[in-house]
């Protein structure tokens, strides 16, 4: 009775000279990971459709005129990919320099490591280089929008929009360098369509969106991930059975996330599951 998926063909590709076999429909990024090759990503989300916004994952496909974003380009039979070619490394270096010179990547996991690995020098554009620096928007008690850290990857917009939450509280406003993620008419969140599910925070790659608890603790210097435990349990509110990962420091819940590969939630929660833990 259960409709079986049509059998997926396997595709043979070569990653850095190593033969890899992946299911048809897999991306080059999937193939790289299967081959044990670490390719940096920022705008790629494991629960979202690829947006191709950041270009930090580009790789060189043999015979192709341009570099290909590994996160969205499908693996094709016989494809030969080089993740560390001079051209790919140079491109990644420039992307990192442009991003790090304009946005604050201090809370982006692994950014510092990549900058060193690719020899990026974000300061080479000089002190006059344009930045997105601005004060953090703190307009509610649940989460903070610090757009000085925003790299415009659009993941929050997709999570809030038709890919998951379908609330459409935020979108891209403006053009070019002045583009920003914004509520309608740049209103405070509390006057927007926002339902405070925090599903945008869940996918943000740079910490531009962060829970108020984390934001405050970072500000006072008490945020310490090495002292935190992560335990996945089940939400205590309605009967849907959402999986919550509780980040606990000093026997206090400091952040709630959700496993992205879970069949119930796919990484999403509602305001109660994400924030309704105040009583424990």
């Amino acid at each position, binding site marked *: 009775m259960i409709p079986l998926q049509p059998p997926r063909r396997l595709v043979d590709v070569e990653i850095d000279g190593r033969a890899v076999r992946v299911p048809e429909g897999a991306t080059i990024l999937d193939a790289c990971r299967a081959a044990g090759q670490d390719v940096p990503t920022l705008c790629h989300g494991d629960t979202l459709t690829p947006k191709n916004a950041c270009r930090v994952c580009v790789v060189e496909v043999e015979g192709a005129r341009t570099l290909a974003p590994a996160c969205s380009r499908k693996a094709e039979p016989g494809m030969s990919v080089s993740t560390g070619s001079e051209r790919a490394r140079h491109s990644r270096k420039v992307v990192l320099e442009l991003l790090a010179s304009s946005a604050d990547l201090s809370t982006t996991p692994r950014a510092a490591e990549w900058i060193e690995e690719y020899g990026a020098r974000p300061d080479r554009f000089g002190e006059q280089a344009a930045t997105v620096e601005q004060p953090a928007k703190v307009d509610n008690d649940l989460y903070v929008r610090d757009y000085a850290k925003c790299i415009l990857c659009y993941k929050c917009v997709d999570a809030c929009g038709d890919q998951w939450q379908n609330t459409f509280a935020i979108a891209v406003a403006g053009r070019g360098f002045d583009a920003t993620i914004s509520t309608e008419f740049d209103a405070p969140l509390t006057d927007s369509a926002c339902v405070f599910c925090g599903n945008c925070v869940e996918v943000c790659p740079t910490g531009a969106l962060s829970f108020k608890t984390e934001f405050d603790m970072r500000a006072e210097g008490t945020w310490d991930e090495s002292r935190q435990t992560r335990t996945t349990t089940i939400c*205590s509110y309605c*009967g*849907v*059975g959402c999986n919550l990962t509780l980040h606990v420091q000093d026997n206090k819940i400091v952040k709630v996330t959700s496993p992205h590969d879970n069949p119930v939630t796919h990484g999403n929660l509602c305001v109660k599951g994400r*924030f309704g*833990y*105040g*009583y*424990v």
Partner: protein
Amino acid sequence: MGYDRLTHPLVREGGELRRASWEEALDRAAEGFRRNVARHGPDCFAMLSCARSTNEMNYVGQKFTRVVIGTNNVDSCNRTCHAPSVAGLSAVFGSGGGTSSYQEIEDTDVIVMWGSAARDAHPIFFHHVLKALHKGARMFAVDPRRTGTARWAHRWLGLNVGTDIPLAHAVAREIIHAGLHNEAFIERATVGFEEFRQSVEPWTLQAAEQVTGVPAAAVRELAHAYATADRAQLCWTLGITEHHNATDNVRALINLALLTGHVGRYGSGLSPLRGQNNVQGGGDMGAIPNRLPGFQDILDPGIRARFEAAWGVPIQPRHGLNLTQMLEAMAEGEVTTCYLIGENPVQSEADSLACIKRLSMLDHLVVQDIFLTKTAQMADVVLPAGAAWCESEGTFTNSERRVQRVRKALEPPGEARDDIWILCELARRLGHDWRYDSAEQVWDEVRSLSPAHAGMTYERLERLQGIQWPCPSEDSLEPPFLHGRLWESDPARRGAPAPFAVLRHSPPVDVVDEEYPLRLTTGRRLDSYNTGVQSSGFPSPLRRGETIEMCPEDAEKLGVVAGEEVRITSRRGSVIAPVFIDPALRPGLVFMTMHFPDEVDTNSLTIEATCPIAGTAEFKAAAVRVEKLVAVG
């Protein structure tokens, strides 16, 4: 803001609750049970088990009731929400769970959300619905209010409160008259079709329009869309079950699935959305008066014999009291002692004043909770427990029957202890030397007694991110939907046929008249939960307190404006709340939540008219009047 957690035991002395040691509190609690049982027999005891706590706690709780005390008087607050779903589904299919899984919602063609504000009340379930809509599924919302769910629907059928059966009957009649019923399925897998066909015959589209207020064309469209879909899902929530004839409402929806063959196949099914994290599991574990763990029939001597052999005591061969009957028995003096675990009936029951009166007649009341709730404040002994979902190990079972692991992330505050530890300490004081070293040990005992859970080891639950019951074997998994047997061609494998129900329309008990001209219905908001004990503890930007919501037309007629405080009076009580204007309501219909009982006790307005089969109260339909407050002087 919010309630403080309980951090140490309390006992009543000279009318006041005072701090006590665990030793003293446990001795007092056990002594009171022993005294009452010695004087009146085991049936003077009643347990309300916690639909918020783990399967393991619920198993030990019902075992305490049946083994240590020796009665079947155990129930939980599933009585106030989904007992009718369980009663209806198990009467037809022999099993009380929803028949489908969330993934199937995404793969279906037509979704009917009947009396379900899932967009606000079950937001992550609604994500699966939204996936289906983006893939091209059609959705019909049947609800008196134009809810967040209805705003996503292709058609909103705004029926009058309490006219679900006429609407379902009209849908059925239209399907039959259009020749769209599934004759092969009806013939093979059901009984009672002819009587059913006759019973719906009077409900023409026009007759239904008169009674339900839904245009005939919309009823017809729903009927045709549902019947002609390859796959269709029928989902419901408390809009169906919080009525005095709730089990009949559930049966009316099940009739539609039987008529069209939309059950027992991938993508087609019946999904009641459960309101509390483990209300499904509480029933599955036997924390209800008519079932043993594994939802096994307590009246079956063979099943009782297995439990008697495992537990070493005889089990009463009869149903115990359900929550509603317990409250009545308290008034009659037949139940004299009560053990409430994590329940707050003083604020969650319809007609809350009557509930307080009844609890106060008990000789001995023990409350085990994480907060000093209004109910706990009435107790003789208060035992501080850990919060199940993050302070203990165990499992919960969700609305798609998926058993998932609950893990301990925090130490409970102060002297608060694990529920199972407390139950074992009390059992020991009452002559049963129980010892469970871990939740897993309890679970393995459940697995040895419940075939539906037998294959669910903790290791497998972890590896597979939960398993849906039934799971009889450690080596295999069953399909994600139930009752595939109904489609078998071999009659032996097909098993008992599913009966159609012949039902009568019974309008809400609380009649709308000149004195009480408005229909009050109740429900939840996105950011709050039930009596608000938990959800009041976080600073939600969405929270705006209790209001009486009404449409602009009614507000104008009453001469009131948004924010103005008004008096709302029913035949039972009267409260004051500010007005909130909501164009999603229709004239004559007003709405309140139950989230803020300490400010506005909505349940002093609601009626305790209960479903005779499942015992659920008619929270969804009270008659009220709304009056302007007259300034004094």
